[in-house]
């Protein structure tokens, strides 16, 4: 079995190395075959491992000793339990779908082999992240997925917007990692190890420990667990794009669509959710941290949803819905419903990957026009894409019996049972979020697939970041995409419908997660109350028809139908009437402007100031320059005497001898005077 564990990450790595190192040599067919084979092997191996874990076999062991120093040792190793294997299945399956899809999506791209190398490398990194049995390797995977994300957002490296977006993404993530590594440092400093198992086993011993942020200052002394968990969560805020570190995710849409599905929807951005669930034994010890988590999550869930309403780029709408859904997962974490968060992570991975890939299919059909104002009525021309997109949207808004319903409804219910400070606000956010999600999702759906056909007109440039000409020319019709593109859509649509119905019982109410997730049931009895209310998946869906959650979603769909299909002239009027609010949303609450001016601009200003003022001004100017001036001053003085005129030298010598003799005589006189 242990060899099988190794095979899971190494097979995609092998694919990545072949496709990457030989990208200029090997033909496209070979590159994608090796890459797909690698990920395929990883998927099959994951299925076997899943069966093994389901049979009750978990594993926690070292692969190799990475480093020892003093009393500390760091290793690369695997922890295989139900949580890990869930992530492994999601990652490898979605990755496999995306690999296949890429054959069609990227077929004419000159960077075809390079792209396959990157996405296989990503799969490797993500697997190393989820399979880690210690914080060091977690951080390793954490940064490695960040690197590949950086490379892929900037995949089309000649586009200014793409290379701006990837730098922004990397730096925003680094801000998160800054907190994350300090959190890891606190774990090491207090527990003496970075291995999960001993840390989790002894976590309770540190429940009452404190740490001083500024040593010696009692006012800055806080609970150790709260500080550690909040710092770790700052890492999650970067990776999982929580407010205020969310700014990079919408811009990451500059990358090719397959990676938006794989990295920026299904897997990498959920790493933060996974990490917090993994750390549940630590987070359970700090209500402060959980409160922090739930508030950040609800802000993200609610306010990022609003932004989805006004976007006109098909990918950006889906991106904002991802942000909002990540907020939902974070809320679940804050409510101590870790398994619900992972459950939503899984269903979301399927339907959001589906939505992104379907959006990509639309983009292909529209000849790389991404503006939904230029679409409309596409269901006639792209039936498979239409149907799968509809399934994805229904799952997203939480239609009963669809996968998204089970996970989202469970989150809402969990929040209603939570008594963590901030849970009231969270409940309001996730309820309001239901309406907003339904509204923007179906606004997108109606504008793209229904209504008037707005494509093929003498159009303005579609998506301005594309260097070349894009979009349908006059009279041209959209077309359905080839099978390599639509097959993954179909394969993702199946779990998007059924996975929730099938897995809700074992994942949330059975003992599937067993000891992988720890909940302090006395302090946070949310899951127990949830279990009491649960009477089977079918009953849950039926019951939902009478709940306000469902009717909020219906209201969202109906209002978007009314505004965008029935009375399409109204939105413009609303926009005109709500000028300031629209401007606020248009500018994404001014986060970007603020960061660019204050942080990016400020840092450059400080840098210039220190350089010109500190280095060049004070150090070189005063100290170095000063000593140079002293030296050259003395030299200039000395030069005066070296005139080359003998009489001057003679005079100086005589003067010197006289002066010397005088001094000597004076000294002698003093000497004799003392003798007397």
């Amino acid at each position, binding site marked *: 079995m242990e060899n099988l564990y190794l095979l899971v990450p190494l097979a995609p790595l092998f694919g990545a190395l072949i496709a990457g190192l030989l990208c200029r040599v090997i033909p496209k067919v070979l590159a994608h075959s090796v890459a797909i084979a690698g990920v395929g092997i990883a998927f099959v191996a994951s299925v076997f491992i899943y069966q093994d874990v389901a049979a009750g076999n978990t594993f926690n062991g070292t692969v190799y000793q990475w480093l020892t*120093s003093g009393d500390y040792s760091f290793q690369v190793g695997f922890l295989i339990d139900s949580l890990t294997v869930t992530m492994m299945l999601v990652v490898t399956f979605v990755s496999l779908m995306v690999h296949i899809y890429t054959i069609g999506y990227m077929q004419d791209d000159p960077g075809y082999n390079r792209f396959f190398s990157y996405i296989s490398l990503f799969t490797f990194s993500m697997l190393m992240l989820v399979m880690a049995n210690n914080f060091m390797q977690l951080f390793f995977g954490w940064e*490695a997925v960040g690197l590949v994300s950086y490379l892929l957002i900037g995949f089309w490296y*000649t586009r200014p917007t793409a290379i701006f977006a990837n730098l922004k993404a990397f730096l925003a993530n680094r801000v998160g990692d800054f907190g994350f590594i300090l959190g890891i440092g606190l774990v090491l400093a207090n527990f003496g190890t970075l291995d999960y198992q001993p840390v989790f086993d002894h976590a309770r011993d540190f429940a009452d420990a404190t740490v001083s942020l500024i040593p010696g200052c009692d006012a800055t002394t806080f609970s150790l667990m709260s500080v550690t968990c909040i710092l770790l969560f700052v890492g999650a805020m970067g990776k999982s794009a929580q407010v205020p570190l969310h700014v990079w995710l919408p811009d990451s849409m500059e990358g090719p669509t397959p990676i938006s599905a794989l990295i920026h929807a299904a897997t990498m951005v959920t790493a933060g959710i996974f990490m917090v669930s993994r750390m549940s034994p630590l987070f359970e010890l700090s209500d402060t941290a959980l409160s922090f988590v739930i508030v950040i999550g609800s802000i993200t869930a609610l306010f990022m949803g609003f932004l989805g309403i006004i976007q006109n780029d098909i990918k950006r709408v889906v991106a904002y819905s991802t942000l909002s859904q990540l907020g939902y997962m974070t809320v679940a974490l804050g409510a101590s419903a870790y398994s619900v968060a992972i459950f939503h992570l899984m269903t979301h991975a399927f339907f959001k990957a589906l939505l992104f890939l379907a959006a990509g299919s639309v983009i292909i059909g529209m000849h790389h026009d991404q503006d939904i104002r230029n679409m409309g009525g596409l269901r006639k021309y792209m039936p498979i894409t239409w149907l799968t997109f509809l399934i994805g949207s229904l799952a997203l808004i939480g239609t009963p019996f669809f996968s998204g319903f089970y996970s989202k409804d469970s989150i809402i219910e969990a929040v209603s049972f939570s008594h963590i400070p901030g849970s009231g606000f969270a409940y309001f956010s996730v309820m309001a979020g239901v309406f907003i999600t339904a509204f923007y999702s179906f606004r997108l759906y109606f504008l793209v697939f229904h209504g008037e056909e707005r494509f093929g007109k003498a159009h303005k440039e579609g998506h301005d970041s594309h260097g070349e000409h894009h979009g349908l020319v006059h009279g041209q019709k959209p077309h359905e995409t080839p099978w390599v593109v639509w097959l993954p859509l179909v394969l993702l649509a199946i779990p998007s419908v059924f996975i929730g119905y099938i897995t809700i019982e074992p994942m949330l109410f059975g003992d599937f997660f067993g000891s992988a997730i720890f909940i302090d049931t006395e302090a946070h009895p949310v899951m127990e109350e949830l279990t009491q209310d649960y009477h089977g998946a079918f009953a849950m869906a039926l019951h939902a028809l009478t709940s306000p959650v469902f009717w909020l979603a219906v209201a969202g769909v109906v209002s978007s139908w009314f505004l965008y299909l029935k009375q399409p002239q109204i939105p413009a009027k609303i926009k005109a009437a709500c000028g300031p609010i629209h401007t606020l949303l248009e500018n994404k609450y001014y986060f970007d402007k603020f960061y660019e001016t204050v942080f990016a601009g400020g840092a450059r200003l400080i840098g210039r100031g220190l350089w010109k003022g500190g280095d060049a001004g004070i150090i070189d100017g005063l*100290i170095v320059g000063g000593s140079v001036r002293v030296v050259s001053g003395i030299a200039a003085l000395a030069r005066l005497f070296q005139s080359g005129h003998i009489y001057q030298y003679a005079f100086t010598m005589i003067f010197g001898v006289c002066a010397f003799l005088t001094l000597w005589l004076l000294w002698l006189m003093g000497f004799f005077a003392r003798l007397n």
Partner: protein
Amino acid sequence: MSGLPILSLAIWVPVLAGFVVLLAGSDQNSPLARKLALLGALAGLLVTLPLYTGFDTTTPAMQFGELHPWIRRFGMNYHLGVDGISMLFVILNSFITVIVVLAGWKVIQSKVAQYNACFLIMSGLLNGIFVALDGMLFYVFFEASLIPLYLIIGVWGGPRRVYAAFKFFLFTLAGSLLLLLSLIYLYLHSNGSFSILEWHQLPLPLETQKWIFLAFLAAFAVKVPMWPVHTWLPDAHVEAPTGGSIVLAAIALKLGAYGFVRFSLPIAPDAAHAFSGLIIILSLIAVVYIGFVALAQEDMKKLVAYSSIAHMGFVTLGFFLFSSLGVEGALVQMISHGFVAGAMFYCIGVMYDRVHSRLIKDYGGVVNTMPKFAAFFMLFAMANAGLPATSGFVGEFMVIMASVKFNLCVAFLAASTMILGAAYTLWMYKRVVFGAVANHHVAELTDITAREFLVLALLALGALGIGLYPQPITEVMHSSVDELLRHISVSKIQ
């Protein structure tokens, strides 16, 4: 292994090779000079390899020792030996010499023999610094190794080389004299011994220790360089030829840090404790202040030079946390920096050779015409930003971990390098490599040659190898670091 004086060979094989290369004479024989130089550098590397394979990791004692009287009247000895710390630098230095000879293969067309001879002789002298166990012998190597470096900057350097050399000289002068004075003081105080190991055991009153520590600090801080005596480095780098920059960054900067380990900490441990706060603050200034300054640079070489200072700040920080994680992290950071900064300067050199500009604004879209180069450059940029799986991560990680244990405020400032390092490195990378082809210079670029590929691949192997598996590097230093920490923890005040 037994009979051969390996350390003497490590010093004198490159020096001798240097003189042989000089015999090749004028530039008519430059192909011969290059081949001889490469042969000499390879031989120099080869003789140092037994140091690793034959190294006994269980003992902190000096190994491969050689002891011959040198100047009896003053008790000076030709005393050599390595421990787990210095051994790694000898090998790193010998490896970098090979890189440097290869790096200058095509670029240096005038005074080829002299150029290569300078590097070979310098390589031997630098090895001498790391293996000398006699204070005066150390001093001689320490000062002598500067002569070839002056020559390299002065003869093959850029237009403002005189200014750079003068500035460097000015910074070093005071420190060197104070170093000599304290060596003589220790000699007199220890009843006529120049043995560094005996000095380690020498009891000293706190006042004396403080003076000695400060004198050492004056000498070593300039070399590291620590803030605020760092401003010579960007100028020296800018004027130095690529090979000079590589050695300067990879080895010469390590001399100051090595001085702390060999002299300041074990000889004046109580003073080290007394001054640790000061050093930690200076180190943090190096990390944060210099990180910001690097952000504002317009010249790539200056930018990497500033980033070197910030990385060396991690080294001094790690030393003065007085924990094995911190000290070993600092040492790993030194080795890693040898590969990564060396590679960064080489990458800049590769572009400079083609475009003859180091200014960021003269580039843009290099990836379009030099994709292979861009891939290597990306790897090293990421290593410079401290990405896991590269060597740049290991040392930073260890020092940050150690500083969290020490003090959360210190850790907070140190960890800011995560953001700053990524910002200045990747922002430069974006402006230089990404984007559309910016001008006709970039459009006419040709991708790296087989020789350039070899150099980059060797350096990449080092950066990745240490990142993925640092254990072989750290396990040889454990005993020596433990010994060092023991020295630091025992007071020498009587």
